[in-house]
């Protein structure tokens, strides 16, 4: 029982990176921009977080710096894809390469050393004393509560229960109609793409300030790509995305437990599980249930640059 509680606790901790990055990607994809630069953004944020706390050992400062770096990188990406309307796949790959390369080059001095400051665990009074659930649910660092509770509920509410959210989704589904209705397609796409990128880099800050907590060149190891896949798997819905991230956190946690308890499986084989799991989850639901394709479909205008003339 204790093992299971620990597993769930680690699942939240590990899944937080994916959840935050994937929430950011939901914002971008819902307004019609696919950002394949998440992997690079996480790397940039992770390196930024470590670098900032090495100067000023305040975790919030490192995390905010990561968000800010992501916002700036996202604005560059949005400038290329939304304003210039360059190919989103190419620009996204470019962002991944730039982020990974830049983070590795600039992060060399911090490689391997632990973070100078990390987010401490916040035990919720009374609830955290509960026998099983206390450890599993109510004993986490503050970011976990934000990422798994506050943020998805907020995004869900704005996206599905406000006029602004309706406008957002209209821009992603049918930019021409949204334009005709007086919504600025470019403004909407620019800011939500930038905000999404900011959250992805924030996920990097979370990775090195709350989860690992140290920087090394390979620390991101595909989490950005898994996050992009989760968005598709979760049908572009914020709450589903966070639940899917939790599932993947659980798979990662299983790998850790396996290593710690000396299961007769090599560590590198256990480390393959999240990637194989992601591929399986991308393929199986579509095969199993044809209706899934329609229900979980991507926004109609995804990856389509919008030109007013083309209407």
């Amino acid at each position, binding site marked *: 029982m204790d093992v299971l509680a620990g597993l769930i606790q680690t699942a939240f901790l590990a899944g937080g990176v994916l959840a935050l990055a994937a929430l950011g990607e939901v914002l971008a994809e819902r307004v019609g921009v696919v950002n394949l630069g998440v992997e690079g953004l996480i790397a940039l944020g992770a390196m930024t977080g470590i670098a900032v706390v090495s100067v000023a050992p305040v975790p919030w400062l490192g995390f905010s710096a990561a968000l800010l770096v992501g916002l700036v990188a996202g604005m560059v990406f949005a400038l*290329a894809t939304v304003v210039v309307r360059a190919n989103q796949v190419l620009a996204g*790959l470019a962002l991944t*390469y730039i982020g*990974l*390369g830049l983070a590795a080059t600039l992060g060399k001095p911090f490689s391997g050393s632990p973070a100078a400051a990390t987010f401490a665990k916040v035990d919720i009074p009374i609830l955290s004393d509960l026998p099983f659930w206390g450890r599993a649910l109510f004993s986490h660092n503050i970011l976990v509560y934000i990422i798994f509770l506050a943020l998805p509920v907020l995004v869900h509410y704005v996206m599905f229960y406000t006029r602004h959210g309706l406008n957002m989704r209209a821009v992603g589904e049918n930019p021409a109609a949204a334009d005709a209705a007086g919504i600025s397609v470019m403004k909407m796409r620019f800011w939500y793409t930038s905000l999404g990128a900011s959250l992805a880099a924030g996920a990097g800050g979370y990775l090195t300030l709350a989860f690992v907590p140290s920087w090394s060149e390979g620390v991101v190891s595909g989490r950005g790509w898994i996050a992009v*896949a989760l968005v598709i798997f979760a049908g572009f819905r914020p709450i589903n995305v966070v639940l899917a991230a939790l599932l993947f956190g659980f798979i990662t946690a299983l790998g850790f437990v396996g290593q710690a308890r000396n299961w007769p499986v090599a560590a590198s084989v256990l480390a393959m599980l999240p990637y194989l799991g*992601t591929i399986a989850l*991308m*393929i199986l639901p579509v095969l199993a249930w044809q209706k899934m394709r329609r229900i979980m479909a991507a926004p109609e205008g995804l990856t389509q640059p919008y030109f007013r003339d083309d209407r």
Partner: protein
Amino acid sequence: MMSYRLQRLPAASPAVAFAARLVSVIAALATAGLILKLAGMEPLALGAKVISSTFGSSFGIADLALLFSPLLYCGLAVAIGMRVGVWNIGAEGQFNLGAFSAAGVGLFVAGPPVLILPLMVLAGMIGGALWILIPTLARAYAGVSELITTLLMNFVATLLVYFVATGPWLDSSGMALATTARLPVAIPEIWDIVHWGLPVALGLAVVLAIAFNYTKWGYEVRIGGSNPGNALYAGMPVRRHLIFVMLLSGALAGLGGVMEVAGTVHRLQGGISNNFGYIGIMVAVLARAAPLGVIVSALFMAVVLNGGIILQPQGLTTQTVLAVTGLILLYAAIGDEFARYRVLRTIQPQD
């Protein structure tokens, strides 16, 4: 009244597109130089050093050739995928699997080299093709985007190579940490340390260029890639072409891995691919997916990659090269869009 306005064309003319490519590459290198300058380095001196160390000696040329070859294989693999409308972001993994399969045959099958070498090549190509099989079938039969599935397979491949190189296949001499024993057979060398991997890749580029541009098959593949609906309506076997080209793409990247492990490195080790698969995407994009263009862009990227290796004492790494690659890719994507615009001069009648 004279006025100017911009017109966006459905496709850029080849000459303008080429010019845009050239400008974006120069702009990207200039940006990288500016960043180096801000970091307190001398970009022009560094550039001169790269050029002189690369082209100034036969060692430099040989090193360059050894980087040129894997970039050709990966570039061709990605390029033919693009022709059929597929993003094979998994060349890195297929390259690793090619190296893995070839090393497996080389280490554990005894026999004369004339027999073992072809067997290694075959195993590597099958390995590469198998590595893209699941993404291929998922794309062809369930419409699952191959972009992310092929990419995720890269991580699995890297872990697999790392696992065998540090575990079951570890060099038993006790000296090595993460590498297998030296392979008993090698791809024959043609000049200095340059082996047959390079001429074979160049030959493949020519063969693919002819196949795609001058055969009925190539025509059908291209139509199926650019307009699947029309191709289907015209009775072309779109799905069959898609599956075949994707598997061929994997096999090509795998062949690159065979040549790398059996011709250049001679051992299977973790990190055997210097980001070749990822830079291969850049090679294919720069070449606009033309097999002969891949020769030019692979050579260019080999110089860039070699530059990163030469400048390692200055604190740069192959990861820095990846950042520069990304910069070129970003500018190329932007340049592509700009190349589609044409300035129109219009004379409006006075009334």
